[in-house]
């Protein structure tokens, strides 16, 4: 198994009621599988159909292979400036 730290910001944090979850997946799992796991959390049905995530501070595609200890942040549409 691998453990990843999931971070939720802004509207996503409010939807899930938490800013951080530690989730476990089988070794070799990809970001797409983590997204499915996140979607199974309580309240997650309010998340949008498309989710953007950053793995270890870089925006990542759904086929990115995860490693133990990765930090995966779910990034709502950005509005800085």
């Amino acid at each position, binding site marked *: 198994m691998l453990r990843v730290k999931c971070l939720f910001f802004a509207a996503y944090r409010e939807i899930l009621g938490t800013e951080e979850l530690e989730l476990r997946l089988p070794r070799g799992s990809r970001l797409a599988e983590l997204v499915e796991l996140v979607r199974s959390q309580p309240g997650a049905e309010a998340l949008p159909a498309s989710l953007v995530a950053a793995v270890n501070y870089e925006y990542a*595609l759904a086929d990115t292979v995860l490693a133990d200890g990765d930090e995966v942040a779910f990034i709502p*549409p950005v509005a*800085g400036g």
Partner: protein
Amino acid sequence: MYCVITAEPIDALEIMRRVRSDADGAVVLFAGVVRDHDAGRPVAGLRYEAYGAMAARKLTDICQSALSQFEVSDIAVAHRVGDLAVGEISVAIAVAAPHRDAAYQASREVIERLKREVPIWKRERYVDGEEAWLEGTVIHPPESS
């Protein structure tokens, strides 16, 4: 180069001073300021939230890329987080260059990319007491990972 996400008020003059050297003939400063309205609705203030560690890295990437793309000497960026009142500076970008054309272009490039790519979110507090996260720009991850 200087890129920070900060909870402290931004001193625009200090940001400008960080970039100028004796070889520079032009400094362009962009300051984003909290407006008293948005889409016609009166705004009392804003709350900015950032994914701090990643935001600082993304800003650094953006500035490094602008430094190599344009003939500029130095770039400094500070983005505020937390609660801001109308009139407060949310972001300051200073660019110094030997010539003005490059300074304007780099300044523009940094603010446009910041708005599209840096993980920062904005919650508006309206005068009528309501609050809402602002509709933002959807990130497009790189085509290959």
